[in-house]
Structure formats: structure tokens, C-alpha cells
């Protein structure tokens, strides 16, 4: 008689059986001190399902295979000087923003899932959170390896971890993860596992990495899709955690709803940076931000919330506002970076005629009316030798930390301002969504490290722009300002001239 092989479901049950146990030297509540204070009630941890049923041995096997494939591509890219085959030198600015703004968050996610994996007392979520923690460490490492090749040629990359902790716009993603990591383990799981991974990472990785492929960046698309292949597991963990919490106890619903509302809005604000990359920074475009939003939030999110409605969970508050903003947000963000190009570690430019026409076509309701005239005026000012720089430090939203440049819902010609009073001080916000978040946790958000406030308080190297840039380790005249006239542009033009010569 031949031994019968166990099926996937039985194998998983055997491999994870007994990984959790009741502690005897110390009471369970002392071993797991953080999983009760948030008010979440769990009746039975064993109800947790991992539909991937991935055991540690299979995990190592698959991850090793992914790494082998990725590094073969990175090697080939370097050997063949892949950087010279990009669509345009401008493209590299996308990679710079990615490494300074997103890769450090992969590391934060690694730390966060390590914490969740340690402090949730059920075995199912602990195994899944542990794998995700390792995945996120892999993501940051592969991104640094990939982009280090660009660092040999282009500016603005070499000081990325230092910049991440100091530069004004990088405080947007940094504060997002700082907020999640200083929350309890359940809020962290809803914030990053559900709201970020399930609802929003598709918007980050899929159209963006496809854009990298389209612009000749084989190395970035390869790490991007390699990371994204872990993402399906992360999304599954996110959806399992929310179903589990809602099934365990009806008292969990209002707590979870509040987190979903909060983290949806925070995520939406942070992804405004991605919106700008897609609409303005990719020389060859795959889809507009608005199109990506329609597919990945309206359509995919719609299916999901229809499903979660049976637990009483509602579509996140202000989802309608976010959807209306999808026609504005990339333009308003690019306007900010264009005006503050002297303080950013990547290059900016005004779109050319072909690009403007693409934007007009993709944004028929808003672009010609509100944004194109401004871009044409700024382009004209450049021609006249009066390139517009905004030298005033902007007011920042106390929650999302973005300059207060967003407009009123339904009125794109009026800047939105909201405020709250707390302990005798006034706090300012870009939107109702950000104000609500502050009002829900004023003790936490009153402590925000706001880059502009810090400059005024003398905490950022000195009072002048060069002082602050120096403190950022931003190489003035190379890392910042317009692409035209930059050392990056000069190098790119040399390569292209050389290619023409070689071909001719």
C-alpha cells in the first residue's frame, strides 16, 4: 500500500498545529500585553483562516525562486547599460521619488508586521504577519539594490534614508507609517493590511510598475512585480483580518469602521504623490490617475464593500470626496512641486504640447478649465526668463502634512481650510477628512513633526533655504530645480548624442 499524500488543507493544519500554546510560567495577558487596550473583542482565535495555506517550507521555496529571477534581470540590466534605453532622462525622477518616499515605508511595514506578528495571540495571523514582515524586508532590500544602479549616474538618490527622515514632502509617507506603527496591533493591521494593502496598493504598484515597463525600466518593473507577487498574500491577510474582527463580536464594528474611515483618507492623501507621478512624471503614459482610480478604487473597492456590507461595514467616509478629487489631485500636487522645485530632491518641468493635449483628453471636465491656462502661463514666464518660484514656506495640514493647496469639494477655485482648537492652540487642515482624524485623536496629532514649523523653530539647520537644503543633504544645483539645465539632463543628452553617433 502506498502512503497517501496529504492534501493542501490537511498539510497546512498539520504544519501549523500546536504552534500556539497557553503559557504557564506567565499569564497570557502579560505575554500579549497589547491586544486588548484597543477595545477589540476576540472570542475564538482559531476561527482565523489563511486561504493561501502557505507553510514556512513552501514560503522559502517560492521566495527563493522569486529572488533568483529578479536578480538575473538586475544583472542583465546593469551589464547592458539599461539606463541608456529609458524613454527619456526625465523618467529617472520617478525612481528617485520611489526610493526616497516609498522604499523606506517598506522597511516601516517590515517593522510593523514583526510587531503585529509578535503581539497578536492567534497562530493564524501570527504566521501570516511573520511572512509579511519578511516580504517587506525583501521589498526594501531589492529596491535599494535595483536603484543603486541609477545612483551611479543620476542625482538625488544617494542620501535617501537621511532625506526620508527630514525632507518636507517625505514627511507625508513617513508620518503615515509612524502613525500606523504607534497604534495598537489591530489598528495597524486595519491601517496597513486592509486599507493600504487591500484598498490602495494596486493603485501604487500596478499602473506605476506597468509604467516603468513602458518607459524601458526593466529593473524597476521587475522588482515592482516581484514585490507585488507577495502583495496578493498581503491583500488576503488584509481582507481576512477585517472579516475576522467583524465576525468575532458586534462591538468591533464601530471601532473598525472608524479605522477604515481614517486610513482610507490618509492613504488617499499619500497616494496623491503617485497620482502626480503617473500623470506628470512618466514620459510615456500607461493610464491616467483618474482611470486607475476608476478601476482600482471605484470598481474593485465597490465589489469589496458590497461584500463587507453584510457585516454592517460601510464604504469609507469621504470616499465620494476622494473620487471627485481624482480629477484634480495630480494637477494640484504637480503645481506644488513646480513652485517649490528648489526644495525638492527631484526635477520638475512644465508639460510639453503633446503632454498637455493628453491631459486635456484624460481630464475633459477639469484640465482645460482649471489647470492648462496656469501651465501655459508658467511656461511663458519661463520663456521670458521669469520662471516662477514660490519662496514663502507653505502652511501644512496638521494630519497629512501636505501643503494646504487642495481646493474645496465642488469649488476648484477656492483653497480649502479647516481648523480645530485643542488645549488652547489652533490646528489647521486641508480637508474635512484630515480634520476628523485629528478630532478623533487630538493628543496624538498635536505632536506631529511638521517640517515647516520645525524650520521656523530653528530645528532644521538654519533660517535660509540653503541652510535647510544642507541639513537635508540635498545637493543644491544638482538634486533640485528643473530638469532642463540639470546635470541629469546634460548626461542624458550626451548618451543620446553618443547613440546617434554610434548608429550613424
Amino acid at each position, binding site marked *: 500500500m502506498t502512503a497517501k499524500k496529504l*492534501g*493542501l488543507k490537511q498539510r497546512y493544519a498539520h504544519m501549523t498545529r500546536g504552534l500556539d500554546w497557553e503559557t504557564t510560567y506567565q499569564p497570557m495577558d502579560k505575554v500579549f500585553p497589547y491586544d486588548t487596550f484597543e477595545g477589540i473583542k476576540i472570542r475564538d482565535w482559531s476561527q482565523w483562516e489563511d486561504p493561501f495555506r502557505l507553510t514556512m517550507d513552501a514560503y522559502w521555496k517560492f521566495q527563493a525562486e522569486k529572488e533568483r529571477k529578479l536578480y538575473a534581470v538586475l544583472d542583465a540590466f546593469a551589464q547592458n547599460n539599461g539606463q541608456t534605453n529609458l524613454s527619456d532622462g526625465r523618467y529617472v525622477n520617478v525612481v528617485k521619488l520611489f526610493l526616497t518616499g516609498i522604499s523606506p515605508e517598506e522597511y516601516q511595514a517590515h517593522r510593523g508586521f514583526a510587531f503585529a506578528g509578535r503581539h497578536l495571540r492567534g497562530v493564524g495571523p501570527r504566521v501570516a504577519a511573520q511572512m509579511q514582515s519578511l516580504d517587506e524586508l525583501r521589498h526594501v532590500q531589492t529596491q535599494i539594490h535595483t536603484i543603486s544602479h541609477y545612483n551611479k549616474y543620476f542625482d538625488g538618490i544617494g542620501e535617501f534614508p537621511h532625506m526620508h527622515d527630514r525632507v518636507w514632502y517625505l514627511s507625508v509617507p513617513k508620518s503615515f507609517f509612524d502613525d500606523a506603527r504607534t497604534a495598537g496591533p489591530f489598528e495597524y493591521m486595519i491601517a496597513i493590511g486592509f486599507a493600504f494593502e487591500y484598498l490602495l496598493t494596486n493603485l501604487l*504598484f*500596478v499602473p506605476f510598475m506597468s*509604467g516603468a515597463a513602458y518607459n524601458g525600466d526593466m529593473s524597476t518593473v521587475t522588482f515592482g512585480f516581484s514585490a507585488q*507577487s507577495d502583495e*496578493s*498574500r498581503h491583500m488576503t491577510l488584509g*481582507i481576512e483580518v477585517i472579516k475576522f474582527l467583524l465576525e468575532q463580536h458586534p462591538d468591533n464594528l464601530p471601532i473598525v469602521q472608524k479605522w477604515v474611515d481614517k486610513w482610507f483618507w490618509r492613504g488617499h492623501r499619500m497616494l496623491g504623490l503617485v497620482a502626480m507621478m503617473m500623470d506628470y512624471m512618466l514620459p510615456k503614459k500607461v493610464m491616467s490617475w483618474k482611470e486607475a482610480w476608476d478601476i482600482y478604487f471605484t470598481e474593485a473597492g465597490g465589489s469589496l464593500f458590497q461584500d463587507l456590507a453584510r457585516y454592517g461595514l460601510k464604504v469609507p467616509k469621504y470616499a465620494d470626496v476622494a473620487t471627485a478629487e481624482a480629477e484634480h489631485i495630480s494637477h494640484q500636487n504637480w503645481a506644488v512641486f513646480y513652485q517649490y522645485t528648489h526644495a525638492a530632491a527631484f526635477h520638475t518641468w512644465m508639460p510639453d504640447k503633446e503632454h498637455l493635449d493628453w491631459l486635456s483628453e484624460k481630464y475633459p471636465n477639469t484640465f482645460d478649465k482649471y489647470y492648462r491656462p496656469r501651465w501655459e502661463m508658467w511656461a511663458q514666464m519661463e520663456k521670458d526668463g521669469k520662471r516662477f518660484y514660490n519662496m514663502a514656506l507653505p502652511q501644512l495640514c496638521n494630519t497629512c502634512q501636505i501643503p494646504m493647496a487642495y481646493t474645496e469639494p465642488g469649488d476648484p477655485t477656492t483653497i480649502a481650510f479647516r481648523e480645530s482648537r485643542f488645549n488652547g492652540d489652533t490646528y489647521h487642515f486641508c480637508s474635512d477628512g484630515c480634520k476628523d482624524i485629528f478630532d478623533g485623536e487630538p493628543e496624538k496629532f498635536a505632536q506631529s513633526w511638521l517640517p515647516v514649523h520645525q524650520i521656523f523653530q530653528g530645528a532644521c539647520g538654519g533660517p535660509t533655504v540653503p541652510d535647510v537644503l544642507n541639513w537635508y543633504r540635498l545637493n543644491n544645483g544638482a538634486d533640485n530645480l528643473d530638469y532642463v539645465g540639470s546635470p541629469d539632463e546634460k548626461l542624458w543628452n550626451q548618451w543620446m548624442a553618443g547613440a546617434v553617433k554610434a548608429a550613424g
Partner: protein
Amino acid sequence: MAQIASLTLYHNDEARPIIDAIIADNPGIRVMNIPGAVKLDCDGSLTVNRSSVEARLGRSWEPQELQLVLISMAGNLDEDDDHFTLSWRH
């Protein structure tokens, strides 16, 4: 609104037999090509069958290997030795 079950896969040689199997086994499927990837959408549910993939691949194949070419997905997952199914049914 119909709830959409969806899979996004690499568009490369390794994924092609899997993509073909999915298209053959899920009538009414919608295929969206973007550079480097393909997004497959189905109303309600979407299944990858081990036997269909193996027939096209000419070797044995486990549904867990899907993870090597997977970019994204939508729906509740049910995975076993012979299938990988995403659906919004309960």
C-alpha cells in the same frame, strides 16, 4: 453592480499557459492588457484549474505556483490541490 473577481498576472512565457487556461475555463472573462501585465476580470467568480494548466504546460503544476506570476487579485480566495478560485459568493 456585478461584483468582479479578478486576477492580474505577469505577461511572460511562464504565465502564458496559465492565462490561456483561465481564458478557456471562465466564459465571459474580460482581458485587459497593460505593459508587462494582464488583468483578467470575471463577474462573480474566477477559477484556475490545475488540470487545464497542466495540459497546456506539459508538466505537473501546483496551484501554489501561481504565486510566482501573480501581481494582484480581487475576491475571497479558496485554494486547494486542484484549483485556485476567487469569488464573491459565500
